[in-house]
């Protein structure tokens, strides 16, 4: 089969299946809901790691340090999240004003 024939044949393939599960989506337009989600600072402990050659003990140390500092870090996250959320709420109000029909 020539490449052109293969391409033509493939264009007509249809298996009629819709496979669910994790799927990547490009985020082009950021909605208010998405901004709300992002406003909350929430880091993933699984991402604390070291890429050094004997990195396992360093990773362990970093995670222990993170646990030890969680009260202090939690305060910083909470304050930043509060600010972020309030900004998004104001933005939401402004958007609703813009979309509202003009008054009498």
């Amino acid at each position, binding site marked *: *089969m020539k490449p052109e024939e293969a391409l033509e044949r*493939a264009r007509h393939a249809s*298996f009629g299946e819709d*496979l669910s599960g994790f799927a*990547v989506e*490009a*985020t082009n337009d950021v909605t208010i809901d998405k901004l709300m989600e992002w406003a909350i600072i929430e880091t993933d402990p699984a991402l604390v790691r070291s890429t*050094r050659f004997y990195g396992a003990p360093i990773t362990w140390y970093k995670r222990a340090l993170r646990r030890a500092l969680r009260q202090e870090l939690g305060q910083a996250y909470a304050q930043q999240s509060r600010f972020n959320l309030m900004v998004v709420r104001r933005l939401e109000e402004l958007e609703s004003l813009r979309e509202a029909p003009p008054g009498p």
Partner: protein
Amino acid sequence: MRLHQVLSGAGPFDAITREALAIRELASAWGWDGADHAVHIDPRMGRRMRGLDELSSAPGDTLLIHYSAHAPKMKRVLDEPGRKILLSHNVTPAKWFWDHEAGIALQCALGRREMHEFAARCDVVVGDSLFNAAELGSDRVLPLVLPWIDPAVALPPEPDGPPTVLFVGRLVPHKRQDELIRAIALLRRHRRPDARLVLVGEPLHESYLDALVALADELAPGAVTFERGLDDEALAARYRSAHVFLCLSEHEGFCVPLLEAFQHGVPVVARPRGAVTETVGEAGLLLDGPLDAMAELVHLAIDDAELRGILRERGHARLDRYAYPRTSALLRELLDG
């Protein structure tokens, strides 16, 4: 002559870093001095890459700036004395990262904004593909300088074993490993129940890898292998045992693994996105179609001996364009000005 190279980030498995190291070897062979610098340096690089703060150029020096993302303080390179060449490797659109890694998304968003300023302030602007050069208003291309691209090496024999589909590249959203897993699931359910998929690459982070592993377990249990940190020999072995190289990336500035597939005689099936069209040319099966069509193409590329033969030959011939003697001569011409 002194040549300084500047990168936003450097890591042991990164194609841009590997090119920079190859250029450094060439420069040393030409008797040129200088060093390579990066903003973010993976600890595994050791002293092969130095920090940007150690960069000190003089008038008459050449700075080769490999641009692929924003990095803090990288702009100061533009104030250094010497002739500046911007080599664009492209910056991935941030839209692929906002949901998965905010830091990288920021680097990409800023990078895409400021790359035009870099282009305006450099003496020469080139891209490693025309796709990359054109984004910055240039038509000058310096394909990646890769010493192992050798069209003189004979095609290896066809692989044995179960039908194996391969993709090599970081596990990141725009390379669409999620789509590759779906394609292999379709292939197994409708055409080749024994097909398997091998994904080689460093993950964006462990959570992203976990999501892909869970998807593979759900849709094609036992058929998908994830590998990382392979040395050159192990990677070559993966290519030699692959029947098809499938690329469903939504964005590529060049895509070196396509050339690796050609070098190892692996037929290429891909979506024509970014620079993929240009790198593959007529040597692979390019189709902008749904997953059903891509799975069918993979099936045909595995199953049809005539088609496989044509694709292997065309891929091998495509390497002439990227052969090391040619790219190193183009590099020398660029650096000599």
